């Protein structure tokens, strides 16, 4: 196990270097540099000397390769650089915004599991019943309705029909005012959680159906065990493995920034930070956030792999 973990950690290094190079190149390949992104068409009013002086100010005057290596050597020392727009260290911006996205992601996952797993189990057990049909329709809707539509719908219904809306654009941290914070985060979390619940439900249902047709379940039944015991003791644990994988991947995505929902509900998380960084061509910020998201993804995948060994004894990364 330890050896496996060490191996995994070492294999991270080339991956992150690859990501860093790709992002570095990609953001520079996009037309429009930081200066035009900030000044818009007025950038055309700059004289050559003015532009040169701005480029020097933003460090754009050096060749890209040199820019990459100076950035990389800073990163290795734990310094992700400065956001030129906000005049703050990229790392502190990320740590400012990340808890928001983390909270949103965790809540969405909880909502998704609370709805998805019971619904999936029930509809597998009572296959083709009314409940099953209802659940499958729910899943189809959940998967096909895009987040921006659901989010806008939620806002519209709340504000127009009920005249209420959790104060938007004025996000409050959980520790400052838990109640207000939850009011602000619950609707975005529901929006994200619903579509996520749909995929959890489908995955739970199909893997449950598969497990229920396995031989050992038949054996258990023939021993005359209670159906509920069979499901709890034997089926559920095995059926959960693909669900855990799914949740892991989805959770990684959520932490990568729930761009659209954060935009609609004006939640200041990683997603909005990234969008704005890209539109502003805030190079250091884009690079820093992307690296951070990549690390997140890798770490979560690792955790999921470790979790397998806990759920399913057949899986082991033995020494």
């Amino acid at each position: 196990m330890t050896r496996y973990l060490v191996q995994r950690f070492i294999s991270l290094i080339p991956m992150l270097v690859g990501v860093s190079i790709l992002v570095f190149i990609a953001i520079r390949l996009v037309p429009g540099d930081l200066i035009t992104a900030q000044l818009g068409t007025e950038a055309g009013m700059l004289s050559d000397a003015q532009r040169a002086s701005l480029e020097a100010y933003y460090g754009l005057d050096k060749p890209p390769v040199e820019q990459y290596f100076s950035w990389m050597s800073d990163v290795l020392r734990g310094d992700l650089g400065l956001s030129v727009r906000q005049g703050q260290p990229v790392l502190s911006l990320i740590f400012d915004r990340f808890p928001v996205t983390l909270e949103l992601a965790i809540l969405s996952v909880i909502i998704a599991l609370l709805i998805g797993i019971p619904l999936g189990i029930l509809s597998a057990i009572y296959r083709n019943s009314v409940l099953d049909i209802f659940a499958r329709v729910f899943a189809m809707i959940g998967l096909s309705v895009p987040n921006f539509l659901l989010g806008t719908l939620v806002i519209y219904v709340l504000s127009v029909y009920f005249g209420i809306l959790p104060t938007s654009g004025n996000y409050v941290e959980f520790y400052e005012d838990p109640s207000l914070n939850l009011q602000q985060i619950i609707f975005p979390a529901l929006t994200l959680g619903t579509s996520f619940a749909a995929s959890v439900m489908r995955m739970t249902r199909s893997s449950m159906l598969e497990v229920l047709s396995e031989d050992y379940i038949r054996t258990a039944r023939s021993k005359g065990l209670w159906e509920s015991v069979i499901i709890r003791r034997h089926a559920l644990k095995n059926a959960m493995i693909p669900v855990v994988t799914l949740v892991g991947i989805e959770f990684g995505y959520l932490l990568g920034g729930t761009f659209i929902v954060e935009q609609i509900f004006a939640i200041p998380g990683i997603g909005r930070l990234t969008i704005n960084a890209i539109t502003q061509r805030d190079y250091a910020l884009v690079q820093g956030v992307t690296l951070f998201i990549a690390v997140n993804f890798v770490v979560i995948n690792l955790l999921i792999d470790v979790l397998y060994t806990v759920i399913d004894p057949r899986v082991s990364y033995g020494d």
Partner: protein
Amino acid sequence: MKKLLSLVLTLSILFGAFSFVSAQDNTLIMARAVDATGLDPHTQTAFASLRLLELVYEPLVTTDQDLNLIPVLATDWSFSDDGMALTFNLREGVTFHDGSDFTAEDVIASFERILDEETGSAAASNYASIESMEAPDDYTVVFNLSTPDVPILSAMASTNAAILSSDVIANEDPSLVTVGTGPFMLESWTPDEVTNLAANPDWWGEGPFVDGIEIRIIPDEASILAALRAGTIDFALLSDPLIATLLIDSPDIVLNRTPSLSYNVLQLRAAVEPLDQLEVRQAISCAIDRQQVVDTAALGEGKVTGPLTMASYALPLEDLFCYEQDLDMARELMAQAGMEEGFTLNVIVANAEPPVATSIAQNLQSQLEAINISVEIEAMELATYVDRWLAGDFMAAVALNGGRVDPYTMYSRYWQEGANFQETAGYLDDTLDTLMKEGQVETDPDARYEIFAEFQQHLAETSPWVWLYAGYTYTAQQPYVTGWTPTASDSLYFLSAVQVDK
């Protein structure tokens, strides 16, 4: 069912209670979709930035509701008889937010900073005729010009010509230290989240009447609308007519629509074939029913306009070439150009910038089909669009251009020889060039009007661009917000007069 009902009730009471609790004090809570991109008034040019900075910084002069120049940090001003010197008398007793006095020294330091190439101020070209500055006393400043330059005065009515403290210029970085003379002081700026402004108790003018302004950034305008309806914000800036018009009949929310100086335009690059043929450009102009563009793309929210959008210079539309749609003439012009078969017109459009851009392009697409021009729409993200636009790398573009108070400042950047946007405009014309030079030095208002009337007619006739319409800018407020004056220049400066009586 009963349970559901009671749940909904409990929820509404819960949320209702909270929305009451927030903002008991006299702070104006304002929402807008886009945030400033930076805080240095001399280098920031984005609308969104200026709309924050104009609350904090003041120029020598500004414009009122009808775009007349009014005094701010200057009390009065005059050109010398030969037009080569512009003298300002400054307001006495004004202090900066850090407590230091405002004097002529600050004016000179500010303009020296703007004109310094190291600063990288895009607006500097508007003040290029300044040769030297002197301060006969603490409250008088004389700008000596290299050429008579009437438009320079209205160009100074801009936050890009804001007066900074000479101490800050000498010792600090104005993109980090925000010290102005304006009605509000910047307390905190969390980009894309929230900005807090406090009232300046020592402001020289009447007001402010609120304790401060909290500006919340809500990127989605539909969410801003929802927040207005739910009563969680007091005041909002809107730009999408599709959203704003939903408020027109609203009994609870006041919508202000102000005709804007900005104009929507189809820019044709005469440097590209077959647009280099006068007849082809004219045919496009004649083929377009401009009112239809307004009606379909912007729900009728706007007015068909000629090149000059300010009331004092605008011409009656019937005085302009082909402002009535005339398909026969358009076809004939196409035939004259040997283009009966038509051609493909590639039009670049920035995504959602303005929100109606794509709809405008689509309407033009359907209209130009009548003269066999097939329009190919190329939509792209704003920064990409700007990049291609600046490089002149396009055939035609749908654009929302910002207007200026003075016609010279508005257009010299495109059509005067050697202008910064020559590459973008891709069109040169001696008549336009001469008229603009005349307009720059002419001090008599009537003569100036004549010059720019001819200028507009010539533009419409040669059709390097096809002017479509000027839209509205929108602000919306709760009924208890009073004293707000919207202006055609979109300025927020007059928030200094707003009162909140909840």
